[in-house]
């Protein structure tokens, strides 16, 4: 809100979504894959099993090329992206959790060095040293998940942190442990789903069947742990959030639909991996690919659900998605939003329309673009100036529900995924004038004629 605004037609939320999903599907493999490869090589050494060793070898190259290259860069990419789209929220997260991230960084160092060393020392060191490297990697990778899960889950359920603003209250939030169980399950099945492709490259048919079955075991275990974790996560959510995607609000039907979608995707995935478990010898890559897509569908659906359930906040009950603090609503209503949005205020040329444009950029532009994602022009296509003003009035009134230390039930709000309008009456009027200029001319004429 108080920073320069990046006009991105794609939409800031979509960009974050792309980078974040690209990262999580890789990073969860980085965690689960480490554990899987460690187990594979341990078994290979104990049994003297060449096929298992080959699978661990192929998997280690997948790990290095997918996880340490793509995973590491997209991980930094999330920081870069959220810093550009939500600098206020990023700053708040950094101030709250810098030591958590610093601890996670230590695990990253161990993770990256052992991963590169592991791949570089095939056929060079004794098996014991090689196993030490991969087990250290697996430990470090899992610990990085243990830390980051605290920060991710905090954003949805900050719990006692809202009162104390204490680091540990933020980390040990209500959905931390269930979410960690869920993500651990995801790590397992992602490892199995990726490594199943490496297993299929085994030339010996008998050995291939064995490897495929082993990877199917990983995935079945992962799916079951994930399902248990998911159900626990749902139970741990505050009732007001759970109600959202259990269909309590007809205005939030998309969330309920996402929940159904992800559970069906998980069920379909389970069927596919059970097939691989029962008949590993007939397994072929197209089925493995469909299973991977089903795994992605569940995971993507879960992340979408988690993000969607958080709206209109970026940090639940603390900061709205446009960077306005819940505690600042009254102040902004009194002093005006533009008094606290230096960069957006540059668009205020003194006219009512100019002020409205500035207010739009301060409060709306973090989610709405003019013509791209969540295009405000498209959303206004069937509205007229009077309707716009009524909507703004309702959104302003909605802000009152947040004041006085209370947080309203989202199902009771007219615009449950939108932050309230904050600002002076003049700023509201100016925003109305500006938004009216975005209504397509033919609509405005028809409305005026009526």
């Amino acid at each position, binding site marked *: 809100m*108080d*920073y*320069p*605004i*990046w006009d*991105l037609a794609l939409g800031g939320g979509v960009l974050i979504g792309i980078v974040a999903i690209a990262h999580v599907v890789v990073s969860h493999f980085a965690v689960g894959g480490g554990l899987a490869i460690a187990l594979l*090589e341990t078994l290979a*050494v104990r049994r003297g099993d060449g096929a298992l060793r080959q699978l661990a070898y192929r998997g280690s190259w997948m790990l290095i090329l997918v996880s*340490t*290259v793509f995973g*590491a*860069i997209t991980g*930094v*990419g999330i*920081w*870069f992206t959220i*810093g*550009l789209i939500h*600098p*206020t929220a*990023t*700053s*708040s997260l*950094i*101030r709250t959790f*810098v*030591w958590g*991230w*610093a*601890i996670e*960084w*230590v695990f*990253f*160092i*161990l993770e*990256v*060095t*052992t*991963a*590169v*060393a592991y791949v570089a*020392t*095939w*056929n*060079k*060191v*004794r*098996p014991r*040293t090689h*196993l*030490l*490297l991969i087990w250290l990697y697996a430990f*470090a990778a899992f610990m990085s998940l243990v830390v980051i899960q605290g920060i991710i889950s905090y954003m949805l359920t900050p719990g006692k942190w809202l009162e104390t*603003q204490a*680091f540990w209250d933020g980390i040990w939030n209500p959905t931390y442990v269930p979410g960690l169980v869920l993500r651990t399950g995801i790590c397992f099945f992602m490892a199995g789903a990726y490594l199943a492709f490496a297993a299929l490259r085994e030339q010996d048919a008998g050995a291939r069947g064995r490897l495929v079955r082993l990877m199917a075991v990983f995935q079945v275990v992962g799916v079951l742990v994930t399902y248990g974790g998911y159900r626990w996560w749902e139970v741990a959510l505050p009732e007001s959030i759970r109600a959202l995607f259990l269909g309590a609000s007809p205005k939030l039907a998309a969330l309920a639909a996402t929940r159904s979608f992800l559970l069906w995707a998980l069920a379909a995935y389970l069927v596919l991996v059970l097939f691989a478990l029962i008949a590993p010898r007939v397994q072929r890559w197209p089925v493995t690919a469909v299973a991977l897509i089903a795994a992605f569908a569940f995971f993507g659906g879960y992340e979408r659900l988690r993000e969607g359930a958080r709206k209109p906040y970026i940090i639940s009950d603390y900061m709205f998605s446009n960077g306005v*603090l819940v505690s600042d609503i009254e102040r902004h209503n009194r002093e005006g939003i533009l008094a*606290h949005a*230096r*960069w957006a*205020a540059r668009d205020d040329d003194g006219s009512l329309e100019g002020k409205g444009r500035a207010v739009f950029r301060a409060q709306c532009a973090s989610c709405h673009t003019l013509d791209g994602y969540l295009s405000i022009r498209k959303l206004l296509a069937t509205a007229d100036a009077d309707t716009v003003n009524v909507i703004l009035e309702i959104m302003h009134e909605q802000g009152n529900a947040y004041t006085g230390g209370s947080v309203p039930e989202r199902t009771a709000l007219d615009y449950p995924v939108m932050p309230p309008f904050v600002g002076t009456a003049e700023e509201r009027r100016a925003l109305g004038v500006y938004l009216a200029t975005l209504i397509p001319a033919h609509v405005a004429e028809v409305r005026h004629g009526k």
Partner: protein
Amino acid sequence: MASSELIPALDPMPVPGPLWLFHVLWVVTFFIHILLVNAVLGGSVIAAWAGTAKPGRRSVVELLLTLNTWAIPLSITFGIAPLLFVQVVLGRFFYTAALLVPGWWLGLLGLLMVGYYLNYLAKWRLAKGGAVGHWLVLQAICFLLVALIQVVVNLLHMQPERWASAAESVVAALRDPTLLPRFLHFLLAALAMVGGVVAWVAVRRVSGAPAGGRAELDAMARFGVKFALYATLLQLIDGFWLLFALPEEVLKAFMRSGPVAMIPLTLGILAGVVLLVVLAQVHDPLAQGTKVRRALELVVGATAVMVITRHQVREIYLAPARAAEELVTTAPWGLIALFLVIFVAGVAATVYAMVRAATDRPAAGEQAA
């Protein structure tokens, strides 16, 4: 609107620790990061040079591709810590600077990824005997652009008075008299360091090399020393260019900062001069291994003190904009202690694993992993 009025408000959350600690951690982790960045930047440029300019430098290219296999992921990972600490202390300046050139800032990640994958691609092609010159040039361009973007954002975050014009045009974001000397300062340091590394590796390899391999190692060492020498010579000129290109008020304030600022600067310049002398004395690098090692130590030492100088100059740049800043701090010592314990344990585990990986070899008749 005056530029100073464009500085976003302070984050209402307190800084979670004493400021001095964040500054120390920031400088220390940045030092490690910049050494690795030097390896990547200098390594990719020298590899491109060696891979295209003259045939017969295969061993140099091989070495640098292997070096970058480690240096690229480690430089990214070690970059996380200073990125964290700059956000804690100067978040509102840093985010604004990145937002003035958002496409570039995000594009940096794409360049990093392409450069990283090109390293593996070139390594594989080289192992199969294929030509890699054009891949190496492309990789070097990627990392040079990454360095340029970093310098642009760094300069912007220190100068809020340039924000209004930079917001109007990208060209204005580049219009800074210190941009070119600063960029060259990093590049030349990287070339000098990696030149030294190439020579030092050749010196180390000579004891176990077969008789016929000595000539190749000699060529490799001379190549490295020559690169380090020319880069250091240019660095001395560029260093003074950068110093005198600083805004007048910054230069004056820096010169008046007393021994705290003058000692690191003087040490840095001295290290550069001594480095030049040492490199000029190396006529037969394989026979003068100690001098080669000394040169490498001087590069690392000069980098260390220059990192301190860089930090001090930043403080001076930002002093007017931060004059009224009242940062509230807390001191969660238990949490800080936990970080330090994990840090020490993590570094110990990493070092132990690396030493084991480098030294453990199967005995005769024993099977390797």
